């Protein structure tokens, strides 16, 4: 049984059908990458899983149980942590406070949360020095680290990462992906990426979304091998991989 299974998911924003029957499965322990152009429905898929967007029809099964229609507060308590697009680090709170609040879905003491947040800096040494800096003072790369660290504080069984590379310098993107390849040891990850090369480099499985539908799915090698897809989503250099 897959950890996460989405069946024929339809999500509407008013008149617009953002997802028109998406079906994907994420197996326990995998990193699955969702690729696609802007507006294809990648973020909407994640928002539907975490409860920010309500499904019009279809179902979302987590661990075999339907979570479609639950609110975000309930879903994160089940063990799905969503690191949304734009990082959304609380600007008026410090880095450590932001990370600590990531544990709000669990019933643990404040001192325990504080210790866990300190331990999180071992995985993210680059932000340790900014522990007491307010969120709004950080750079894009630092914000991304804080956002991922905060997402991990939920001790998720499934981590949803939305465009972690967006707007970051290449060297920072590499640092972020090094962290993702470390996280995967303990956590299943569903990753949305516009940077297909990076996104597939850490993935066990990939899906390509196009205007609200899955048009292709497969192992990264198979996706690199599909010429039409490679040209459209993976950049012109992709052919050399095929």
């Amino acid at each position, binding site marked *: 049984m897959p950890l996460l299974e989405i069946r024929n998911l339809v999500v509407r924003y008013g008149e617009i059908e953002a997802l028109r029957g998406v079906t994907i499965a994420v197996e326990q322990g995998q990193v699955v990458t969702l690729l696609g152009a802007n507006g294809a429905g990648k973020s909407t898929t994640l928002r539907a899983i975490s409860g*920010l967007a309500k499904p019009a029809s279809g179902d979302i099964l987590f661990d075999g149980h339907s979570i479609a229609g639950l609110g975000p507060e309930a879903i994160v308590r089940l063990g799905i942590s969503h690191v949304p697009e734009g990082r*959304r680090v609380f600007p*008026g*709170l410090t880095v450590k406070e932001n990370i*600590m609040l990531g544990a*709000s*879905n669990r019933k643990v003491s404040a001192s325990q949360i504080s210790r866990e947040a300190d331990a999180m800096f071992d995985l993210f040494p680059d932000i340790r020095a900014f522990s007491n800096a307010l969120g709004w003072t950080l750079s894009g790369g630092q914000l991304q680290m804080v956002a991922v660290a905060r997402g991990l504080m939920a001790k998720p069984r499934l981590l949803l990462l939305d465009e972690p590379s967006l707007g970051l310098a290449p060297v920072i993107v590499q640092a972020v992906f090094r962290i993702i390849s470390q996280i995967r040891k303990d956590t299943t990850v569903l990753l949305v990426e516009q940077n297909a090369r990076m996104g597939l480099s850490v993935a066990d499985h990939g899906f390509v979304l196009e205007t609200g539908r899955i048009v292709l799915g497969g192992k990264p090698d198979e996706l690199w091998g599909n010429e039409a897809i490679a040209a459209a989503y993976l950049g012109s250099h992709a052919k050399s991989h095929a």
Partner: protein
Amino acid sequence: MDLVLQLLFTGIGIGAVYALVALGFVLIFRATNVVNFAQGEFSMVAAYLMVVCVELGLPYWLSFVIALAGMALLGVIFNLGVYYPLRHRTYLPVIIATIGASILLSNSVLAIYGPQPQVLQGWFDTPGIQLGPVYLDSQYLLIIGVTILLVLFNFWFFEKTLLGKKLQATSQDKEMASLLGISVSTMIMITFIYSAVLGGLAGILVAPVLFVSIQMGSTIALKAFAATIIGGFGDVAGAIVGGLALGVIETFGAAYISVPYKDGFAFLVLIAFLVFRPQGIFGERVAEKA
């Protein structure tokens, strides 16, 4: 010089009341992005609750506890009845609902108690103490003392506790807070309860200095609203400094310029700020809203 000290004491005392009500404005504004125009009526209702309890012959401290508990309950009802049903709408319907609630509260009290202003005795039997050249009125001492304690509590609560951080997170980004598992509706409920108690406390403390009347709420609220703008809208420290500054300014204005125009000075200062420094003393930290 003696007069200056005396006026400063009185000004800070009355300013502390504005500061408490202003704090209530700011906390609700930060949590809901809406100005609660019934904030002043919280003060008025609490003062009347106090009058009722004292007239029933209850001890002063018990009346105080009952009045504050009543305010906590009013905060719950207010949230459920006024804010919660409209929480997914724009700010305008919510603001109009708070104005409606304010009219409802004052007219309910009017219907029950009539238009006659009531008198509430102070907490202490001693009217005050003479300290050198300054006469320290006991009620003003109480107001200042309670305000200092509350400002300290407020700082501790919001800066040192996890619950305070969750409240801050909710006011900064509700959707993100809910993604982390923070119950946004609970956080907003706590904010309304806390703000109603703050407003009520201000009303109870100031009641022995003024008369307890239907209009006392709107007068205090207008000054407190001016104080929040002077301090910098949405800023907690600004609300406190703005409230104290306004109390001092109007006391000095009344003493040295004109007593009948006492209430006018607050708004003169407000207009000056709106023209020359609309972001207030502490400014709006734009980055915090990003």
